[in-house]
């Protein structure tokens, strides 16, 4: 491949606005050679456009969405656009985040305008090159499907033929973008480009990385990644046939062999003695006591009252004396206590990473959501300068937040550094993957509300206790303020009228915890939307109408809720034992309202239908958005029905899919998703489907006469049967 469009990084920064996007119009071929500046777009002489997608593809469709943004404005031949996987590089940072990280549903939002501008700038340069070649004014030039056209003379040239000349032209400082009415790719429902490699088995996931003479590693894990262990029979295991090395790594030992099966058997033979562990003695009773103690002994931290990237600032200042006084003076009070358990990610692709340490350089290749952070950490731990560390991203076989963490590439790096010159692939077994998860924390919430004479909600005070994800990861919080991943939207700010107070009591536990699809909303939608339902029923009001009244200032949210209510037939008569429930989630980038219809008969729960109304603004790939919502619902359904990681003897008591139940084809009820046309700016969809299903189900069960569910999972009280 020859380089054609060659814009320096500086030029692109200048052209697109400093700090917006370092778009190297470069060359995947060069990039393979080292850790130099990245390349995002290359047009080769035959006219094919190579786009290196800067974000990680874990199923959410980011490759497709970002490729469409470029192609839409570039006006290239979509069929001839090829999409590649990224590596850690400042050229690839998400301009909305300032980081190359695929998390927080921030990809489409962050890249939407910069990538369109890049595509438009390239198109303008190609048009200018055509005009120069033919000696005509650029305003007589048009483009279509990867060709520059001079209509008056009938002349046309492919982008490939003009790319080299275009690359020598200055990058336009000011680019005009298409009007949405002219979009051909943004908003179309054609299948994603990555489906073909995925149905044929050709897509390269991390676990598929193969290199000549590669060693494969299996892990013998300590009960906690920060535990200290000692192997009693190290020499014996090292002497097992086929074993090449046994390397101490973070959280245990890696056993290396030419084949995984050999390594796994040897790793299982390793006898570990635990010297110390941050979770020594932790079991479910200890966790329960820690939550109780947090409420009793840990000073409450208020939730910070300002905007986060995906959370609205909450209404009101959280005036504690005023809220407490209002509740004390209210005509009636409603109180409830809720519990949710630790949750596992259980992505279908177990953790893995491949690493080569050779000639003083590290190359890591694997399924990562945070390549930039992995690169920085690997360089620091290996004592190497950043330019000696290259981090390459494969397809991710599911991420859901787990592969945001940087804990899994590091043991692979440590193992590889013990055998310089040979690629090492470390593969977690399913048992390892579950045991070494960074779980969604368990939380307990105590809520109290005051209701006025007319049933109106006067004030809500909600307190949440549990671990802080920020504390576990040593991430800085805001002094005196709650970890937003615990407390954010514990009470929904969209419900205007009542005074609100949210507080967090941090539990003293060291169980590994991390981000789990939808993060704070994964627990707080259940707490907030269950409680508002309880309050409505206690006030003798219809929970839909009650919510609707509180949404007076939120037409976008109200519209989604109305749609979900209409879809489920909220007002239709229902038989005894049938119940309907609803719940919503929202942030700056979306609104998702869900409603369900269930039947409850003693312990038997059947879900008849699930509906969702979703608004995320302009959609790049509506079919992809629909799949994110229906898939997100099923992800949330698993947690609501069966999620929960028990602890005993200082470690999680789960091993494989025999005791982490995932839904199968037979378990999934009919799901209908309505995508609400919206002129709002592009938002996010990857996490929105997950949070509302648990409270919608709990609310429907209460409606059906099955009692109020205040503790998840539902399997503690109900058995799922098919409707």
């Amino acid at each position, binding site marked *: 491949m020859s380089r054609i469009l060659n814009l320096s990084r500086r030029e692109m920064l200048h052209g697109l606005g400093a700090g917006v996007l370092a778009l190297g119009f470069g060359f995947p071929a060069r990039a393979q050679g080292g850790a130099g500046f990245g390349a995002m777009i290359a047009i080769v002489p035959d006219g094919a456009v190579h786009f290196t997608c800067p974000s990680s593809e874990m199923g959410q469709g980011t490759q497709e969405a970002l490729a469409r943004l470029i192609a839409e404005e570039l006006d290239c031949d979509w069929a001839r656009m090829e999409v590649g996987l990224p590596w850690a590089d400042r050229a690839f940072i998400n301009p909305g985040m300032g980081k190359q990280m695929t998390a927080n549903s921030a990809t489409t939002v962050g890249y939407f305008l910069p990538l369109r501008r890049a595509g438009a700038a390239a198109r303008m340069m190609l048009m200018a090159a055509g005009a120069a070649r033919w000696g005509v004014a650029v305003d007589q030039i048009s483009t279509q499907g990867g060709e520059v056209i001079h209509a008056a003379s009938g002349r046309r040239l492919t982008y490939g033929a003009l790319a080299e000349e275009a690359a020598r032209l200055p990058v336009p400082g000011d680019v005009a973008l298409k009007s949405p009415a002219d979009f051909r790719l943004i908003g179309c429902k054609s*299948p994603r480009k990555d489906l073909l490699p995925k149905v044929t088995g050709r897509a390269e996931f991390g676990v598929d990385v193969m290199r000549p003479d590669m060693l494969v590693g299996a892990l013998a894990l300590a009960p906690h990644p920060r535990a200290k262990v000692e192997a009693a029979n190290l020499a014996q295991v090292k002497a097992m046939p086929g074993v090449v090395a046994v390397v101490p790594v973070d959280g245990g030992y890696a056993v290396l062999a030419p*084949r995984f099966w050999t390594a796994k058997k040897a790793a299982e033979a390793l006898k570990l003695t635990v010297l110390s562990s941050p979770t020594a003695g932790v079991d479910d009773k200890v966790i329960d006591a820690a939550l109780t103690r947090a409420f009793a002994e840990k000073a409450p931290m208020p939730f910070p009252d300002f905007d986060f990237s995906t959370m609205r600032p909450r209404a009101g200042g959280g005036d504690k004396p005023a809220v407490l006084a209002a509740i004390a003076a209210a005509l009636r009070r409603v109180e409830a206590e809720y519990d949710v358990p630790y949750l596992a990610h259980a992505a279908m*692709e177990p953790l893995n990473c491949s690493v080569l340490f050779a000639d003083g350089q590290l190359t890591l290749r694997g399924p990562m959501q945070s390549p930039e952070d992995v690169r920085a950490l690997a360089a620091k731990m290996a004592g190497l300068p950043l330019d000696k560390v290259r981090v390459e991203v494969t397809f991710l*076989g599911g991420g859901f937040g787990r592969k945001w963490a940087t804990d899994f590439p590091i043991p692979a790096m440590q193992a590889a550094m013990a055998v310089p010159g040979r690629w090492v692939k470390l593969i977690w077994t*399913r048992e390892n993957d579950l045991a070494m998860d960074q779980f969604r924390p368990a939380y307990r919430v105590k809520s109290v509300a005051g209701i006025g004479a007319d049933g109106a909600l006067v004030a809500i005070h909600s307190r949440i206790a549990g671990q802080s994800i920020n504390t576990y990861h040593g991430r800085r919080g805001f002094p005196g303020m709650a970890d937003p991943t615990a407390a954010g939207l514990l009470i929904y700010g969209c419900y205007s009228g009542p005074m609100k107070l949210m507080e967090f009591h941090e539990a003293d536990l060291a169980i590994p915890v991390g981000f789990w699809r939808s993060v704070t909303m994964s627990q707080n939608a259940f707490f907030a939307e269950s409680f508002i339902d309880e309050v409505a029923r206690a006030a003798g009001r219809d929970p839909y109408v009650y919510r609707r009244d509180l949404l007076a200032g939120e037409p976008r949210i109200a519209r989604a809720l109305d749609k979900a209510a209409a879809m489920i037939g909220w007002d239709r008569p229902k038989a005894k034992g049938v119940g309907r429930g609803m719940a919503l989630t929202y942030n700056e980038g979306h609104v998702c309202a869900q409603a369900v219809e269930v039947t409850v008969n003693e312990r038997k729960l059947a879900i008849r239908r699930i509906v969702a109304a979703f608004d995320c603004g302009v959609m790049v790939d509506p079919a992809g958005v629909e799949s994110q919502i229906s898939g997100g619902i099923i992800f949330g359904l698993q947690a609501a029905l069966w999620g929960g990681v028990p602890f005993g003897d200082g470690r999680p008591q789960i091993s494989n899919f025999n005791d982490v139940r995932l839904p*199968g*084809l037979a378990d999934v009820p009919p799901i209908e998703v309505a995508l609400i046309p919206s002129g709002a700016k592009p938002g996010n969809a990857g996490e929105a489907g997950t949070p509302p299903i648990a409270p919608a189900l709990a609310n429907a069960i209460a409606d059906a006469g099955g009692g109020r569910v205040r503790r998840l999972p539902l399997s503690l009280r109900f058995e799922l049967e098919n409707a």
Partner: protein
Amino acid sequence: MITITVNGQERHVEAEEDTPLLWALREDLGLTGTKFGCGAGLCGACTVHVDGEAMRACQIPLNMAQGRSITTIEGLTPAQGLHAVQAAWVAAQVPQCGYCQPGMIMAVAGLLKSNPRPDAAAIRAGVTNLCRCGTYPRIAAAIAQLSSG
């Protein structure tokens, strides 16, 4: 050394005889379309056809595969174009992360081969693979399309 027939070709594998077929396919023969998901026969990511029947390759020791005819996702894929199940998967836009889908496709292809018009019960019994992204509604749509035509 163990001899197996994979995608129509006789192959010799040097791995230990208790090595699951899954790892021999992946590491010795480079057929990485067959995925490792659980190693316990629970998720189906490693589904292949053994003498025409969908089975979980992580549960078949290499010595039990001796002399059998194995088809993997690479072998199911025609030289040109796609197998009907793969084509239906693209048309229904099934895959998200895609990791479970080769196994899912092998399971469905195996089912439809023995039962071209499966009823709901047969589909439930025949497709027990796990998908974490929640692609089931589109899997159901793709199977419905395949078994109606």
